[in-house]
């Protein structure tokens, strides 16, 4: 009786997730094997045309490795930028912690469109950075900051940095300060403590942050299309193209699934390489 009453609490959400997440993903899987048709999203019967189409055309097939590379680059930049920040916040005094925390969270509170837009203002040919450099007489022609992979990675790193810092922070904060003191009492210097104690103990946070940022980065749409313009074609952009503009649902679904499976493999390999024996 008690158990039944308790299960009523979870029933609505369980139903919601099953009907509107699990079932729709199954629908995508089925859709990717449907036949294509002209003038309609999809035709009668089943086929593997969608998958063939992707792998047979270099324009599509080559977008996959470059998307994955873009995701990895973004992840790496986030890790390099995020770790010192997380360390800083974890060890900051109470007074500062709130403010720093606010700065890190601030991008989350501003829509992704607005943030990407901010980057176009900064990176454009007549944008803040180029205009400043030109006024200072440092350059004659604008630097190519936007409409390329550099700009996209930079903007993506900004957009997803909070997702790196938050897990890092939670794993760093869960470290008992006595551990570092213990290492110190055993004669370790500060950098050694970081290398031998702090960093290894924060590995779960590194892992979580990297996976999160990677998945978010390769599936992002707004930033590559605004900051990358027409020059950077990620698989996600092509998926939306196929689905929304060209109305090719089986092809788009196949592409989305190929991207998801590839990303899953990358994540799996990453988790394997960074596996921790003590957790």
């Amino acid at each position, binding site marked *: 009786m008690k158990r039944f009453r308790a299960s009523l609490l979870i029933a609505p959400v369980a139903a919601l*997730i099953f009907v*509107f*997440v699990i079932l729709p993903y199954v629908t995508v899987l089925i859709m990717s094997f449907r036949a294509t048709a002209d003038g309609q999203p999809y035709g009668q019967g089943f086929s593997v045309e969608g998958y063939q189409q992707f792998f047979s055309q270099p324009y599509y097939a080559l977008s996959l490795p470059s998307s994955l590379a873009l995701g990895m680059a973004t992840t790496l930049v986030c890790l390099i930028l995020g770790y010192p920040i997380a360390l800083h916040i974890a060890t900051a005094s109470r007074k500062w912690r709130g403010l720093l925390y606010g*700065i890190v969270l*601030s*991008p989350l509170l501003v829509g992704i469109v607005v943030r990407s837009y901010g980057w176009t*203002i900064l990176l454009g040919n*007549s944008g803040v950075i180029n205009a400043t450099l030109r006024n200072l007489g440092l350059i004659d022609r604008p630097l190519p900051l936007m409409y390329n992979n550099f700009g996209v990675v930079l903007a993506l790193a900004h957009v997803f940095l909070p997702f790196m810092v938050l897990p890092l922070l939670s794993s760093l904060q869960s470290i008992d300060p006595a551990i570092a003191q213990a290492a110190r009492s055993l004669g370790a210097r500060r950098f050694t403590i970081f290398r031998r104690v702090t960093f290894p103990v924060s590995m779960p946070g590194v892992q979580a942050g990297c996976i999160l940022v990677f998945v978010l980065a390769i599936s992002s749409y707004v930033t590559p299309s*605004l900051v990358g313009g027409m020059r950077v074609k990620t698989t996600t952009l092509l998926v*939306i193209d196929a689905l929304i503009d060209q109305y090719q649902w089986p092809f788009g679904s196949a592409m989305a699934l190929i991207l998801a499976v590839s990303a899953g493999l990358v994540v799996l390999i990453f988790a394997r390489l960074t596996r921790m024996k003590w957790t």
Partner: protein
Amino acid sequence: MRIATPLLAVFRTLVYVFLLAPILVVVLASLNAGNFLTFPPQGLSLRWFWTFLNNDIFLNAIAYSATLAACATAVSLVLGTMASLYFTRHAGKHAEAVRIGVLLPLILPEILTAIALLFFFYEIGVGTEHKIALFTGHVLMTLPFIFLNVNTSLQGRDDSIELAARTLGASRYTAFRRVTLPLIAPGLSTGAVFAFIISFDTFGISFILKGTGSAPLPIQLFDYLRFNFTPEAAAVSTVSILMTLVLVVAADLLFGRRD
């Protein structure tokens, strides 16, 4: 170490600047008096805010987004709190499965979830015209934020507080209303603010499921930005940043400092 420490401090400062720069730049750009987004700005003015205030498309989009966010948050608040109560008190050995299940919309790529919902609503013959698909998508996107925030405030709680209320004669419902609810109110309000902002700003779900007719603000802004470079978009963005800020500060003033 002696050299590394100041270097690290400089690096950290640069990262903080990096985090704030795009947002500040948008706000500054909205005050530009010129016709285009040029730098340095051609004088300060509020003219683009006036342009925005006379532009029904953006005003409608803001109203539409706010309504959608409010409705989605209300539904998520009830469902997410129930799920959180189950998770923290009754899930037992299934806790991890429940957690992952509720967080699925957050873990899965938003754009893929949006596509999945699009197909699903077409398959069941509803499509995107009635905005049900859009609304469902927004509930899904906001649910994890309520769940996570309420979890935090429930997990910090001593379970025996509610039991104590029961021994004093309060029914299950009264104990929840008089004791547990006030205690988790900060978590609920933080969760609600988060959920509202997420819904207000979310792109993928809205982009794929918006159907025809009025569209949420991020979509309207995105469409505009693809072809226009006037500071009006910056003014719209600034207004949306200010709305978020007001919401966060209000929630903090109302619920933040107690306990």
